[in-house]
């Protein structure tokens, strides 16, 4: 801008100088030419009068230095010339000024030299005898004047231009200063030219707009951060070069990375071949998923390509913890396999007996034994199916009525139920302790007590004891079932609550258990929000304690 101002000032100064030079030259020249012509005219009329008076003798006596006189007769032949011999001169009848004088009495013309630097002015007057007297003077043209004045004019112009240059520089700096000092952060607070006020207003508005958009963006970012912070799934956003754009705490934990990994390559936090392959795959095909094991947990990772306007701008990686799902799936598969096996065993046995009877291979006296066998196996099946139904009901978590249950009374009832079984093994079952009332499902409490006592009797020694003690411990109600039985080896203690798990597989048949008892107990206790604890010493016996909140 300074340059532009400077240029226009210098140009204007130069232009004005040139124009005034031309105009002054023109005026001056015009003035001098006029003066000269008037002089010539008066000179000519004097000479004409003199020639008419005294003829050629006047001309001969005249020795003019400034001008030249030529006398021409009616035919144009030169009679006399003050500078050359008139006889030798050519006919002047065709000259413009002479022809004009012959016609009008006076004539005038101007002729330039070939260089244009000199011109000759001619004036002619017709005398009374019809001859013509012509006066001429040579003078310089305007171009000669220009050439002559060029040097001083150039000096003046150069001086003027330098001066105007300096002035222009100062001026433009002066104009620009307030513009350079504008505070664009606060455009409206500037005190400057009113011409740029609209611009400042505009800048102010844009400032506001940008601030608004920034805060909106910040808000969106915060929202996004809030959402991803709380997610239990790991979320990683990658750009097209696989650099981490965003990573949430769950993903940081999963890849055991630091928050400083943002903007670094994903390989720096996870370099497993499978995962980088999956990301490449997703970038090519849009989606890929893999499962991987990390920190003892199983994760399923979904990788999706992110596109914007047809170009790939990155990928998003989502990691789900599927440990429980995978475990549940495994448990379900095992359970199904176990159930099928357990159901098949008594059925095989029934089928075997029935086939023997069908083929008449059973003697009449053995018949009751076989029928009895079929009945017990069928009974086993029924018990098994009942247990499975109970378990599945507990699994479903269907609503059951909660009521006040007296644990001591419930224990008594259970013992009464099992009395015959205990008597058969000569086992003494006792109930002691205080009455404790808990809020629970009566049926489930009965279930728990029955299964615990049943096990305590089944896996006991002949003539052994089973003690059931009910009581309080701090603010909990406790049922403790203690037997003097065979006990459970430590390595199996954790597994006895699993479905169909039996410590001694060979004993299952004779004891008639389904392998579901303790599993039902565990589930029932869970349903009642209680806890269970097992302590056992092989050969000495087992204590199982169940706590309920009062």
């Amino acid at each position, binding site marked *: 801008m300074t340059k532009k101002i400077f240029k226009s000032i210098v140009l204007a100064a130069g232009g004005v100088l040139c124009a005034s030079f031309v105009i002054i030259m023109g005026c001056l020249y015009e003035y001098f030419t006029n003066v000269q012509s008037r002089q010539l005219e008066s000179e000519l009329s004097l000479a004409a009068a003199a020639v008419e008076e005294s003829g050629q003798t006047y001309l001969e006596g005249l020795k003019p230095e400034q001008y030249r006189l030529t006398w021409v007769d009616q035919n144009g032949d030169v009679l006399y010339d003050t500078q050359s011999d008139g006889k030798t001169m050519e006919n002047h009848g065709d000259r413009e000024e002479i022809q004009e004088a012959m016609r009008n009495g006076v004539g005038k013309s101007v002729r330039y030299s070939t260089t244009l630097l000199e011109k000759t002015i001619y004036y002619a007057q017709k005398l009374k005898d019809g001859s013509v007297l012509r006066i001429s003077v040579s003078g310089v043209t305007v171009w000669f004047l220009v050439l002559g004045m060029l040097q001083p004019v150039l000096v003046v112009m150069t001086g003027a231009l330098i001066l105007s240059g300096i002035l222009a520089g100062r001026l433009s700096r002066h104009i620009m200063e307030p513009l350079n000092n504008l505070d664009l952060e606060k455009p409206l607070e500037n005190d400057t030219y009113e011409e740029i006020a609209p611009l400042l207003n505009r800048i102010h508005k844009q400032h506001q707009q940008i601030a608004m958009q920034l805060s909106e963006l910040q808000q969106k970012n915060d929202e996004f951060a809030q959402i991803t912070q709380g997610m239990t799934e790991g979320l990683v956003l990658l750009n097209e070069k696989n650099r981490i754009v965003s990573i949430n705490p769950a993903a940081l934990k999963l890849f055991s990375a630091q928050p400083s990994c943002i903007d670094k390559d994903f390989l720096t936090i996870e370099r497993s071949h499978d995962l*980088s392959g999956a990301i490449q795959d997703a970038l090519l095909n849009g989606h890929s998923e893999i499962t991987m094991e990390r920190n003892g947990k199983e994760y399923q990772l979904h990788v999706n390509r992110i596109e914007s306007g047809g170009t790939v701008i990155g990928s998003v990686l989502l990691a789900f913890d599927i440990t429980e799902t995978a475990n549940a799936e495994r448990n379900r598969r095992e359970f199904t396999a176990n159930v099928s096996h357990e159901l098949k065993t008594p059925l095989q046995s029934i089928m075997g007996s029935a086939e023997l009877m069908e083929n008449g291979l059973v003697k009449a006296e053995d018949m009751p034994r076989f029928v009895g066998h079929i009945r017990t196996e069928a009974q086993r099946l029924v018990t098994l199916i009942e247990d499975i139904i109970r378990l599945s009901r507990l699994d479903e978590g269907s609503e059951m009525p909660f009521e006040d249950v007296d644990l001591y009374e419930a224990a008594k009832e259970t013992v009464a139920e099992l009395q015959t079984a205990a008597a058969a093994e000569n086992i003494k079952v006792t109930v002691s302790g205080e009455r404790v009332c808990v809020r629970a499902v009566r049926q489930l409490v009965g279930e728990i007590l029955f299964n615990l006592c049943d096990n305590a009797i089944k896996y006991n020694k002949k003539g052994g004891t089973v003690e059931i003690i009910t009581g309080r411990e701090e603010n909990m109600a406790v049922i403790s079932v203690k037997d003097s039985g065979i006990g459970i080896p430590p390595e199996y203690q954790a597994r006895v609550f699993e479905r169909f798990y039996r410590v001694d597989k060979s004993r299952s048949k004779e004891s008639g258990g389904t392998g579901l008892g303790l599993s039902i107990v565990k589930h029932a206790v869970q349903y009642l929000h209680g806890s269970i604890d097992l302590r056992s010493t092989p050969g000495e016996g087992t204590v199982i304690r169940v706590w309920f909140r009062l």
Partner: protein
Amino acid sequence: MMRSRFDEQLATLNNELTQMGAMCEEAIAAASKALAMGDVKLTEKVLSLDEEINRMERMIETLCLKLLLQQQPVAGDLRQISAALKMITDMERIGTQAADIAEIITFLDGRTGEECGYIRFMAEAASQMVTESIDAFVKQDALLADTAIERDDEVDRLFLQVKASLIQLIAENPKDGGYALDLLMIAKYFERIGDHAVNIAEWVLFSMTGVHKGETG
């Protein structure tokens, strides 16, 4: 402009190295698992990984040479590239030795070396060393590199124990002589892998500090 392109190429180099390192980790982990489970199928995976590691070595080598010729790096950049050139050699050796282990495992007829428990510890320690040295490279962590270097003593100690227990095995069961020798070879390969991991860790330190082992200043 030139510099940003160079930076990009250096980042590519880093990524490729990380991937190659990850493959080495995978190869040795698969070899250890194949030994522990007597799983011959896993050995195939080790062999194919070894092939890929070799291919990767060629690729990184070409990239390094291209960088050296075209960019004429100096100072830290030169260190990084020359260290990369050295590291890939060690990584390639790790891959090949994992493949050698896998090959021996196929001759073991499903036996898992359980007679000599130390060999499992060795496999684990060597595997960990490789992971640590690659981690040190990825995170540019001098402490991790030092940890990896120190762990080599443990691997060497374990190798001596393996040797002792194998001598005992041969003494007790002369028939198992061939088997014991195979196990000894495997142990030796693990020991070598540990040495290569140490080399990698040392090159990581060199690329960070400009000082290579034993040198001062």
